[in-house]
């Protein structure tokens, strides 16, 4: 007997959802690769119906030192408190991206970094970002932008 709860037609996102860290991140780093740590930044929370995430974009803000950006999936669905909510049991790395050093310029564009995601997130689950080494002073870093849509 057929399972009538399965989708038989493709579904599309209903509402665009562009989400960003909301602040410059990067000067405070986190060397952990298991998703733990207080210097872990929430960049996206899926909607109550779930969301489809296309990609994460990173652009340098001012002069930035070389580092690695790490993108994590966190299955926790409640409020997020960095260093408490994200545990090794509920958080895992999706991707790493090497970010080259960049000197701020008004004649040379900073590198365009994109992490493709292209999969749906269950309701209220999250994407987190860390930086493996500090990008520099408090005025240098990144404000990751997540391109997604909500179901």
């Amino acid at each position, binding site marked *: 007997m057929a399972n009538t709860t399965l989708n038989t037609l493709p579904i599309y996102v209903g509402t665009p959802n562009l989400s960003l860290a909301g602040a410059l991140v990067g000067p405070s780093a986190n060397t952990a690769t298991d998703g733990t*740590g207080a210097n872990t930044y929430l960049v996206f929370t899926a909607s109550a119906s779930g969301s489809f995430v296309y990609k994460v974009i990173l652009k340098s803000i001012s*002069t930035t030192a*070389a580092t690695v950006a790490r993108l994590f999936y966190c299955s926790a669905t409640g409020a997020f408190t960095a260093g408490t909510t994200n545990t090794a049991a509920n958080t895992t790395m999706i991707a790493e991206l090497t970010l080259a*050093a960049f000197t701020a310029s008004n004649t040379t564009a900073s590198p365009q970094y994109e992490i493709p995601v292209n999969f749906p997130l269950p309701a209220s689950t999250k994407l987190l970002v860390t930086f493996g080494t*500090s990008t*520099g002073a408090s005025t240098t870093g990144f404000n990751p932008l997540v391109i997604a849509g909500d179901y």
Partner: protein
Amino acid sequence: MVFWTIEYGPDRLPGWQIMDSNLSNAVLYDAVGNVLTGGFDYSVTGSSDTPPSWWVG
């Protein structure tokens, strides 16, 4: 070389992030020059024109 002072771990211990002049390679050290490994949080607290006393680079 570029010398940044850092505070790392839950006890905010002092250390260093030392990079080449074009900021392309970084190594983390504790206050006495041991390379820091493992997973931990840290923040840059400032920069220094002079290297730490143990630096022989």
